């Protein structure tokens, strides 16, 4: 992550963008099928919690059926925009030696993955966004954020993506030391499902779990932007959240730098 001329970076990203579009086009059916599965997930949780809300006389912990519809739909969008898959690929990359070509280039491999990720998000967002609107309408979601909440949502979303990307890329570096990282990845995934608000809004989880989710980075990676735009946070809480995100981004950057240096030293010591 040496300083690179910005103009060069933009150029690289544009070239990568074109290449990636070609790639996704080659796999358009796989992509469509994958999207179908992705979209089913919020519907399932939405239905489960709506059923719970009804059986409890309309609301659960301050969430009505319409609130759940808004929560899980927006969660799907935010989760889709922030998730990464690179940590599932690293083991294969390291073992098969596919890391070497990336190391030979005069540019940090992080940029390769970041460009891939951003392109994929832009591409799939064209499907995710209309479907989200459709879901919001179908399930009669109650989503009416005030202007400041929308305004706060944007940096919260960008920070959430930055944080998640940096942390998960750092997690991926474990593959330099361990031959099998699947177990670590699985454990991490479990934490994400529970602590990022995927299964239920964090407010509905036990107090202790909420504290853990807030102390660790998980809440700030997905749930926080969702809560912001749903209007469930006071201006003060939003400000604190943004600060927490920035602190975590700083920590993640430090971890990444350190881990990357050590990882490459390790990679180049044991045989690339």
């Amino acid at each position, binding site marked *: 992550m040496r300083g690179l001329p910005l103009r060069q970076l933009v150029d690289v990203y544009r070239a990568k963008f074109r290449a990636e579009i070609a790639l996704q086009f080659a796999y358009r*059916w*796989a992509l469509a*099928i*994958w999207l*179908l*599965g*992705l979209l*089913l*997930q919020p*519907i*399932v949780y939405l*239905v*489960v*919690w709506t*059923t*719970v809300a009804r*059986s*409890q006389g309309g609301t*659960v*912990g301050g969430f009505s059926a319409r609130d759940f519809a808004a929560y899980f739909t927006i969660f799907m969008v935010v989760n889709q925009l922030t998730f990464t898959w690179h940590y599932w690929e690293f083991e294969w990359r390291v073992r098969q030696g596919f890391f070497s070509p990336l190391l030979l280039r005069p540019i940090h491999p992080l940029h390769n993955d970041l460009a891939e990720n951003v392109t994929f998000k832009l591409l799939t967002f064209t499907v995710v966004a209309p479907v989200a609107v459709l879901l919001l309408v179908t399930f009669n979601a109650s989503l009416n954020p005030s202007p400041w909440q929308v305004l706060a949502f944007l940096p919260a979303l960008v920070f959430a993506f930055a944080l998640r990307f940096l942390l998960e890329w750092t997690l991926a570096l474990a593959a330099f030391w361990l031959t*099998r990282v*699947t*177990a670590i990845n*699985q*454990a991490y*995934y*479990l934490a994400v*499902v*529970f602590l990022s608000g995927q*299964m*239920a809004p964090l407010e*509905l*989880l*036990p107090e202790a779990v909420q504290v853990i989710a807030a102390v660790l980075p998980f809440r700030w990676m997905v749930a926080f932007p969702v809560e912001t735009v749903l209007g469930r946070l006071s201006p003060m809480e939003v400000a604190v959240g943004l600060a927490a995100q920035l602190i975590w981004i700083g920590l993640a950057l430090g971890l990444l730098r350190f881990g990357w240096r050590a990882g490459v030293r390790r990679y180049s010591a044991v045989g690339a």
Partner: protein
Amino acid sequence: MRSLGLLWLSFRLGALNAIRYRADFMVQLFQSLIGLGIALGGIAVVFSQTDQLGGWRQEELIALIGVFMLVGGLIAVVIRPSMEQLMEGVRLGTLDFTLTKPADAQLLVSVKRVEIWRLVEVVLGAALIVLAMVQLGERVSLERVAAFAVTMLAGMAIVYSFLLILSTLAFWLVRLENILVIFHSMYEAGRWPVGIYPPWLRATLTFVVPVAFAITVPVEALVGRLEPATLVGSLLLAVAFLIASRWFWRLGLRHYTGASA
């Protein structure tokens, strides 16, 4: 009998193969436990806010998760890997080797590959069902267990036929690698009783991607809320699916030989 013999041989081969990769066992165990953790955690979170979900009580949902894992495990052990192998065989032409063997080809391709470590999931699922049955106590009677077994078999037959039909499509549409993912993502919806879903999704899960018959219906039988009509319907549908898939398989096979001759 012959089919059971073949299935057994496949298992033996798969087991011998898998034993050499012991580390995979630990990974699989870990992965299954995480799946279990997510499922049970989800139930715990829901039932911390309510005492019933669409009329289902907590121990009934635990039985449902048990069946979800058991059926999912059985699919993952033999059906899914074999079907993937079949589609690859059609694409690369290696199906020729299977078709020239003196045994029923449908049977052969259906047990072609076994991923033995996924049995972990089957065992966990079965354990969960037993646990739920203990919790349910006196509500479990002999005829309910019998009805459970019958509907479970019917459900497996339906799922197997459905997956075979999907895979047989490969004879016409060669580049189809991902189609089984459709089933996989729909299957995820089976973690919860299909009754809670809105009508269009319920209908999809019952008739288009028949997850309901494989998971919800057997559990209904176990906890004694199965309508006799559903039992009969499940059996009839299983027979219909088996016949249809067999017919479709034959049709596809004709297309295969026709294409490569």
